[in-house]
C-alpha cells in the first residue's frame, strides 16, 4: 500500500543524493545539477502533501512556482558559468578565487 510515507522516503533519498552532489563537485555545472535534484525532491514533497490532503491545490501551485523559479535560477547560473569560463578558462568552483574567500 502506497502512502504519504513512501513518497517522503523516496524524496528524502533524492534530497540526500543532491546534497552529496553539491558537497563533492568541483565543476560548477555539476553543482547546479545537485541543486536541481534538491529542488525536485522539495517539489515532489509539496505535491505529495497536497495530494494526500484531498488534492488540495496549494501544493500544486507552490510546486509550479518552484519549477518556474528553478528555470530562472538555471538561466542566470549558466550565464555566470559561461562568463566564468571566458574569464578564467575553467569552471572549477575552487579556482575562481579572485575574492580570496
Amino acid at each position, binding site marked *: 500500500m502506497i*502512502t504519504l510515507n513512501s513518497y517522503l522516503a*523516496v524524496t528524502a533519498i533524492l534530497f540526500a543524493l543532491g546534497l552529496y552532489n553539491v558537497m563533492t563537485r568541483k565543476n560548477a555545472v555539476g553543482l547546479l545539477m545537485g541543486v536541481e535534484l534538491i529542488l525536485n525532491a522539495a517539489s515532489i514533497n509539496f505535491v505529495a502533501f497536497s495530494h494526500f490532503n484531498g488534492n488540495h491545490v496549494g501544493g500544486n501551485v507552490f510546486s*509550479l512556482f518552484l*519549477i518556474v523559479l*528553478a528555470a*530562472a535560477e538555471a538561466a542566470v547560473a549558466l550565464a555566470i558559468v559561461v562568463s566564468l569560463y571566458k574569464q578564467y578558462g575553467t569552471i572549477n568552483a575552487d579556482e575562481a578565487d579572485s575574492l580570496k574567500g
Partner: protein
Amino acid sequence: MPDLKDIAFLGISAFTLASAAGVAFSRKVLYSAFSLLGTLAGAAGLFILLSSDFIAVTQILIYVGGILILIVFAVMLTNKIGDVKLTNQVVNYKAAVPLAAAVAIFLVSTLTSGVWVEKDAPYASMVVPIGNALLKEYLLPFEIVSIVLLGALVGSMVIVRREVK
C-alpha cells in the same frame, strides 16, 4: 497481490533514484546531465501518480525541454569535447559520504515514523483548480514571478554579452 498503482510507484521511484545516483556518482559531467534526464522524467511520473497532471506536463516542458537543454549547452560550451580527463571531479569525499548518509537516514526515519492524517484523494484533473487558484488567491505571486522571470532573462543576457566599448 499488489495493485498496479503500487507496482508503478515502485518502478518509477526506483528509476528516479537510480538515475539520481547516476547524476551524483558519474565521473563525467555530460553523463551526469543525461542521467538528470531520467531523474526529471521519473519525477514527472511521480507527479502523475499523485494526480497532478498539470505539474507533470510543466515539469517535462520546463525542466526537460528548457533547463536540461541549457545545462547540456553549458557543458558543451565549457569543456573541450574529446578531453579525456575527468570532467566532474569529486572532492571532500570523506566528509560528504557520512554527512549525506546521516541526513538520508535521519530524514527517512523521522518522516516515516510520523503518523500523517491522510484524507482520501480521488484521481481528478488539477488543471481547472490550478487555473482558478492562479488567477484568484495566487494572483500577486503569479505576477511577481513574471517580473522575476523578466529580470532573470535580462540579467543573464547582460552577464554573457560582450563588452561594448
